């Protein structure tokens, strides 16, 4: 790729001549009949995707939708199994075997965690591997000068290209990554969750650049879960769900609520109101709240929020992936130490600096990612169950062997966990049973407040129902439960109150009567329907 020849300032006429062959409204990239599976799961099933030159195309989908797999197949991180990829500048189908090859073929990715080298200078990060040379040695002056030119065209002249990258904020680092991609003449740029670590002005700046790129004919694939941003900057939206293509539309033709409906796989019917079966409605929200969070927030993951939880109630957190549900729960539990606001437990102010403090206040937290944060895979089933109770009691008061076994067996029976031997490593259990073990772990501490983050993910239907029933029983016995799930139906069946989040902010609360599917989706979507929310 480019290196050694005269560098063309990106936004110049010569650049357009370079791209001469590109017909501005033509298809840049077509992916057809893409299928891909991994052991036990079909990640993509006959998916089509089209990217036109000069457009910003948002690729959206919830967990397991397949959007990251689609991109990985395009960029060579995963092997292409079935289907065909074509780009307008090559005559033959394209198969990339590695990200490096993808770059050589004109497709670059700007990742959420900027994949550059923090110890190298800005100029070097743009040019590494393709440094301009003079008489066999690297020409630093040319490298620095060219970098300045490129950055100037991105309105970043204040950046000192000789300083090491780590000096600069993530936003600037992203720009440098973009500059690199531009300089190697990428025709397709994939932005993978680029705004997750950016402040508002930085996001605006990024969008300015994306628009500049768009005007020059570059095709941009924009992966994000921020609804507002999709509507602000994208031209088209493609929605995937469960590995299949739901549809592609022009952004201006797709109302927000419809988008949310497509992502969640629901039908949105203006007229129909799917009411929950009326059953005896008990108002729990009276008396003293068990948990009272006031303006609790954690910078970078969840904006300050206030909410109360009462004993005996099950409260749901609804929102799209990335809206901040887990982050809200983590902030209350101390998994992410809050940097604003206060927390009261039974009207007593408490300071939660770490999970152990929350545990002492009789809270429990079943994490979303059971593999990374839940099971301790080489320890036995028995140990995985009693370890939380042990940790709360302290190292010096060990549970006797008898107590350990009794505790484990009690909850194994209660939750119907299928395990042959409680001393065998927990990694040998099926996913569903592992989830139950973590549930058993927290139940054995008899918490007053339990947070369940996606407790039924990856679990068979039978077990799902068991867990939902269990949640209702526990609430009846007085436990306060926060229930987070991507499946709205499940939450409607189980919770008596719904808190709605969007783009890392709590945007509303729905009482039991208001908790219809449509209301919930409208609340998640926001936009024109905002006024209708309670």
């Amino acid at each position, binding site marked *: 790729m480019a290196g050694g020849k005269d560098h063309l300032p990106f936004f110049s006429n010569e650049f357009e001549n370079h791209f001469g062959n590109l017909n501005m409204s033509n298809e840049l990239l077509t992916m057809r009949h893409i299928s891909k599976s991994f052991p036990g799961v079909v990640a993509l099933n006959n998916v089509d995707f089209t990217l036109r030159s000069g457009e910003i195309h948002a690729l959206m989908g919830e967990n397991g939708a397949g959007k990251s797999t689609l991109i990985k197949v395009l960029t060579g991180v995963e092997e292409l199994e079935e289907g065909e990829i074509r780009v307008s500048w090559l005559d033959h189908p394209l198969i990339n075997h590695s990200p490096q090859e993808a770059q050589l073929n004109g497709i670059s990715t700007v990742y959420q965690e900027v994949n550059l080298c923090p110890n190298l200078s800005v100029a070097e990060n743009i040019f590494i591997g393709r440094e301009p040379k003079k008489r066999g040695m690297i020409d630093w002056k040319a490298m620095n000068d060219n970098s300045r030119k490129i950055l100037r065209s991105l309105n970043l002249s204040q950046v000192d290209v000789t300083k090491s990258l780590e000096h600069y904020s993530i936003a600037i680092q992203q720009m440098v990554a973009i500059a690199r991609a531009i300089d190697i003449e990428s025709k397709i740029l994939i932005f993978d969750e680029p705004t997750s670590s950016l402040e508002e002005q930085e996001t605006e700046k990024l969008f300015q650049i994306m628009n500049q790129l768009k005007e020059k004919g570059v095709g941009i694939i924009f992966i994000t879960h921020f609804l507002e941003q999709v509507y602000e900057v994208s031209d088209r939206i493609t929605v995937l769900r469960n590995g299949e293509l739901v549809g592609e539309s022009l952004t201006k033709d797709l109302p927000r609520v419809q988008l949310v409906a497509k992502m969640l796989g629901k039908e949105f019917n203006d007229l129909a109101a799917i009411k929950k079966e009326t059953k005896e409605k008990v108002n729990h929200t009276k008396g003293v709240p068990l948990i009272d969070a006031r303006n609790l927030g954690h910078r970078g993951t969840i904006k300050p929020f206030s909410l109360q939880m009462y004993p005996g109630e099950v409260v749901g957190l609804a929102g799209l992936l990335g809206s901040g549900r887990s982050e809200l729960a983590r902030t209350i539990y101390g998994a992410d130490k809050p940097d604003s606001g206060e927390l009261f437990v039974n009207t007593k102010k408490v300071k939660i600096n770490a999970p152990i403090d929350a545990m002492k206040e009789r809270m429990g937290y079943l994490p979303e990612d059971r593999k990374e*944060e839940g099971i301790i895979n080489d320890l036995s089933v028995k140990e995985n169950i009693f*370890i939380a109770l042990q940790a709360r009691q302290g190292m010096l008061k060990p549970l006797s062997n008898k107590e350990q076994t009794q505790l484990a067996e009690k909850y194994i029976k209660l939750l119907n966990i299928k395990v042959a031997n409680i001393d065998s490593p927990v990694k040998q259990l099926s996913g569903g049973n592992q989830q139950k073990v973590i549930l058993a772990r927290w139940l054995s501490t008899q918490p007053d407040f339990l947070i369940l983050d996606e407790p039924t993910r990856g679990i068979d239907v039978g077990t799902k129902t068991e867990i939902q029933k269990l949640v209702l029983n526990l609430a009846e016995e007085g436990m306060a439960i926060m229930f987070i799930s991507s499946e709205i139906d499940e939450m409607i069946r189980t919770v008596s109150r719904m808190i709605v989040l969007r783009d890392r902010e709590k945007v509303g609360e729905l009482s039991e009567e208001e908790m219809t599917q449509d209301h919930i989706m409208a609340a998640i979507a926001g936009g024109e329907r905002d006024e209708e929310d309670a």
Partner: protein
Amino acid sequence: MKKTLKKITGFQLFLPIVALILVLLFNMIKTPDFFKITVLNGTLYGFMIDIINRASELAILAIGMTLVVASSAGTDISVGAVSAVTAAIICFSLGPDQQNYQMPYLVGILLGLLGGVLCGMWNGLLVAKMRIQPMVATLILFTAGRGISQLICSGQIIHVEKESYRILGSFIPKVPLPTPVFVAAALALVTWLVLKKTALGMYIQAVGINRRAGRLIGINSQLIIFMTYVYCGLCSGIAGAIMSSRIAACDANNIGLNIELDAILAVALGGNSLGGGKFSLLGSIIGAITIQALTTSLYAMHVTADQLPIYKAIVVVIIVTLQSAEFRKWISSLQGKRPVKAKAAS
């Protein structure tokens, strides 16, 4: 049949036991008298006794090292130097006089052990609190330790002439087995009891296996890691006391020289993953005995002490290669299984 085979090879103590058996078999073939034990004046003698005797300080170090590896996936390379520091403190405190120690025997020993503990605390602070890589952090005492012991000994080799000093390193009168064996056994027992009876063993493993999960269930991983390094320092101290008693002196340059590789090797041979997590003290102890047996058999083949390291180096490389994920990938691709494509980030 394949399943039983897999079960046997997956058994935690498979590697150390097989290794030990191999070495013992080898010895049996080379030296017919290998397993012979004779009784002389009420004490036992024989190759096997010799091996267990000399393996004692290595076993003690391996116990400390096992915990450090398990909790922090790192190695403490200062153990040899710390044992030298301890030896120096003890010899300096007790003094060279033939009739009387300068201070009570126990006080001298305790001062030495305290030195070991302090070194362990220094290491623990750097690794647990300041998050410095274990190898880097322990590098400091590795370089400084012998210098410190030289300082304490004023550059000389201090001899402790009082006869009873040797007891720790040789025999208690009327007891058939050498004292170091009892010390090692006692330490192993105490360690095992503490780990089992206080949930600490489980915590160490949890922290080593999944630090994030451990934090979410309220385990103070910093404290746990700190404690393992302190304990390793204590073990180095005990080993130093024994080694110094064997020669009734403190030779700062040579005490515990190169013993850190042996300790790491013992832990690895014991079937423990150098990446942390589940551990087996028994495995490390067996590993220590195996190494000593290997050393003894090599000596019997007239390999000198200087040349010994070559063989150890080869064994280390073989074990680490077998444990390496890349190597395993290559092997399974040779066997015709579908190769797992190496993934890049994101």
